[in-house]
């Protein structure tokens, strides 16, 4: 049984069809990449999974149960963590408080939440910044904070939305390391990414979409050689 199964997902905003009949699965322990040009419906898919808005049709099955229509906070409690493409730090709280707030999802006392938060900050290499205000972090730190916060909710599945965007090459390498470590700790990952180096290196499988529809799915190698994918990213080679 796959960990996550998206079945014929369709999402329309009035007349605009943002996601059109997308089906994909994420198996336990794997890193599934989701790629496509800008505006292809990737983040909308994430928003559908988390029920940020109701889906038009289709179903989303997590650990064998449909989570269609469930409240976002319940979906988190069931085990799906999520980062945002445009980071949403709890700006006026410290880095430690950001993650402590998230840790309360699983524990009840301040002591436990704080110690769990410190453990995760160390894992994400943010422990030196733990007293700093979240808004004072540069983009690289904010992206890592997004991940740390999601990890504090102890997810089985982590939805990463462009966590490497805006990072310089060495920061991107560190991000790859972190994502690998997360997978090795037993968390499955569905990752949206534009930076090819990142997505090709860490994904077990990749699902490619464009204009809200599936183009193809396969291993990184298969996807890189696929004509449709090349056309979608680079345009028609009619010159």
């Amino acid at each position, binding site marked *: 049984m796959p960990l996550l199964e998206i079945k014929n997902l369709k999402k329309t905003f009035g007349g605009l069809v943002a996601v059109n009949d997308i089906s994909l699965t994420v198996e336990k322990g794997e890193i599934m990449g989701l790629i496509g040009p800008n505006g292809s419906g990737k983040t909308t898919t994430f928003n559908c999974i*988390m029920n*940020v808005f109701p889906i038009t049709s289709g179903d989303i099955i997590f650990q064998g149960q449909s989570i269609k229509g469930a*409240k*976002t*906070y319940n979906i*988190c*409690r069931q085990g799906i*963590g*999520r980062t*945002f493409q445009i980071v*949403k*730090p*709890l*700006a*006026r*709280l410290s880095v430690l*408080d950001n993650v*402590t*707030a*998230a840790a*309360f*999802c699983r524990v*009840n*006392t*301040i002591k436990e*939440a704080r110690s769990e938060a410190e453990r995760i900050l160390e894992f994400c290499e943010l422990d030196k910044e733990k007293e700093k205000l979240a808004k004072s972090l540069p983009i690289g730190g904010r992206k890592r904070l997004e991940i740390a*916060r*999601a990890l*504090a*909710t102890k997810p089985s599945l982590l939805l990463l939305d462009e966590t490497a965007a805006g990072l310089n090459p060495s920061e991107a390498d560190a991000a790859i390391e972190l994502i690998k470590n997360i997978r090795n700790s037993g968390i499955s990952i569905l990752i949206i990414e534009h930076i090819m180096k990142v997505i090709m290196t860490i994904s077990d499988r990749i699902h490619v979409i464009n204009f809200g529809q599936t183009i193809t799915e396969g291993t990184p190698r298969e996807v890189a050689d696929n004509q449709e994918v090349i056309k979608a990213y680079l345009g028609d080679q009619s010159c």
Partner: protein
Amino acid sequence: MKKNRWMIIFGALSLLFPLMVPSSYYLHLMIIALMWVIIGSSWNLLAGYTGQVSFGHCIFFGVGAYTSGILATKLHISAWWGLLFAGPAAMLVALFVGWVCFRLRGPYFALATLAGGEIIRLIATNWESLTGGMVGILIFQTFKSKLPYYYVVLALACLCIYLIKVIMKSKWGYYFVSIREDQDAAETLGINTLLYKNISLLISAFFTGTAGAFYMNYMAFIDPQVVFSLHYISVMAILVSIVGGVATIWGSAVGAFVMVGIQEMFRSSFFGLAPKWVSQAHALVFGLLVIFVIMFLTNGIVGDWAKIKRYVFRMPR
């Protein structure tokens, strides 16, 4: 440890105040200020900490006051029972207010609560069989001396601040500020934002309602114009917290004394030393003060205390 020493000093001073300053006039000012400590702190819990800016806190104050008054006029029991029942009554009303208003965010929530305050004022004015309408409710004052009232409101204020402090250091406190900073992010962290917004509202309403019941007992007279007042109650609660410092534990306490002090200084034309027209100027001064705070001291007196020390006391950075 230094903080504890200050707490003990202030605690002793506040207990001994009426004995040191036996003036009925100053005791009245202290009582009113302490009442605003309660209302301001509870507004701050909802608005400063949870980010839901209410312009309708008069709803809970008035409900509390009328609960106390109606117990006396309709059920013929002592209005002091209001101190016990006003909080729960205000919470019931708050449940309804939350059900309606939390569908909205930010300025729209503020407008909805403002409208709510006006609506309940009109209801109280017109439901004459229950509230006495414009005539208001008049009861006998239990005590001739102001002393018992002072200690009651002092105890209520201490309880209020203590409870808010405890709450803010708990899981609830973290959840409240998370909702304030980013409600959508908070949802994805497993926080039931609607539930916790309501919890914050209920606690806030409880204390404000209790303050209203105290007001009924102390002033012995209420009417819809006063207790359901946008200007005198709802907006004053906001001013007290802004000037003192939103999202701080002691901000509303400091703000309460500052605002009541300023209000009285102007109402009395600087205790009779200034020309008569000065007594009309308090609203103007409030407005200027808020503008000043918003521009230069956004975190209020308590929040920006370090900044104040630097500029006023010329202390080094």
